């Protein structure tokens, strides 16, 4: 029974949001604010259960590991932003997080995004596709090099780079249209299959 009521509520709210396509109205605004409220409440509840309970409470309760209180206290310093006199304390948790993230990312980015990508590009030029890939990569990189004026050979390469970028953006646009339409199909399928049982 609760499942049927749930589907009717879901369908009603779906139609409230779709009503915005005609014009802004009180049903849409009601649904929008309901969504904002439930999202905030959801995040609060999940943040408590999935992080505070698991990462702080359980180590203390199950393993007697009280050292987790130190990073917990450092993390709580983030709330100092609400007290103007002590706002500078937020720098401590940020320094930890950003220092670790920045340090971890440098060697791993070089390994994964630079070396591996270059390794895949530097291949024998024994097929037209490999030639096009190398040409496209070089011309794209030349286009993004703004320290020299795009004239002469650099200008030509830069122009070729733009063509490759336009092909890529065109493909991305095509895929973006596909993605957005898919989202709509998903909702319409819900209305016609899960709610009205018209579609098998």
């Amino acid at each position, binding site marked *: 029974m609760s499942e049927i009521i749930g589907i009717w509520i879901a369908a009603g709210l779906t139609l409230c949001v779709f009503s915005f396509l005609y014009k802004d109205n009180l049903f849409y605004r009601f649904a929008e604010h309901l969504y904002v409220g*439930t999202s905030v409440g959801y995040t609060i509840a999940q943040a408590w259960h999935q992080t505070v309970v698991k990462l702080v409470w359980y180590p203390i309760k199950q393993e007697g590991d009280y050292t987790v209180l130190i990073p*917990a206290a450092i993390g709580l310093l983030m709330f100092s932003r609400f007290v103007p006199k002590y706002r500078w304390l937020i720098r401590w948790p940020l320094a930890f997080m950003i220092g*670790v993230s920045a340090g971890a990312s440098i060697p791993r980015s070089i390994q994964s995004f630079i070396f591996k990508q270059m390794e895949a590009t530097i291949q024998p030029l024994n097929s037209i596709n490999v030639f096009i890939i190398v040409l496209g990569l070089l011309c*794209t990189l030349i286009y993004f090099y703004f320290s020299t004026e795009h004239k002469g050979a650099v200008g030509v390469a830069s122009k070729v780079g733009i063509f490759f970028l336009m092909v890529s953006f065109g493909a991305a646009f095509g895929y973006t249209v596909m993605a957005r339409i898919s989202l709509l199909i998903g909702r319409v399928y819900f209305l016609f299959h899960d709610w009205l049982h018209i579609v098998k």
Partner: protein
Amino acid sequence: MKLRLPLILCFLCGIFMIVQFFVPPFTGVYDKLLNWVMIISIPALVIGLTSLIKLHSNRIIRKTPNMPYSTVAFVAMIVMALSGLIGGTGQGTWFEWMFKNIQVPMQATMFSLLAFYIASAAYRAFRARTLEATLMLVTAVLVMLARVPIGDFLWQHVMPDSVLQWKANLPEDVAGWILNVPSMAARRGIILGISLGAIATSIKIILGIERSYMGAGE
């Protein structure tokens, strides 16, 4: 000191993480540091919500024209949070029921509105004004046609058998070639550029040259 000590901490954490990549034996400190960062980042999940709570509570207190809607948001927030905190978030709970029947449909529908807007935007703005725009348009149309079943369907129903024997799924093959060769080359260039920029920024952060994340003041 209020700025200098956190910068030194950032430097030490950053250098340690770089050194650890090449010199693994610091495993104990490495594991502890990663555990600490996971715990330290917890408040970041909820800190953004405070401005939203402040906005709606101000509207309710000041009795603005949007007060009824802000009341709905506030009540929904409290009900959802309390049902999760007290009743749990697992299978069969009120929290999960509200998530499945209120939050999921609304969030999915909000984003599905984009389908209409992208069609409208494509109609109003996508013009082949220049050679580059034409190239982008042609590629987009090819990918849109070929990456869904109708591309191959039309090809197989329009083309004679002799052509189909040579290439039964030419539209799909063309789209695949576009994505795997020229588009991929440009994307690789973008990945390299972004990665180099990110590495440079990370180095500047560790060395304390880039300090915008620390906020203004001493």
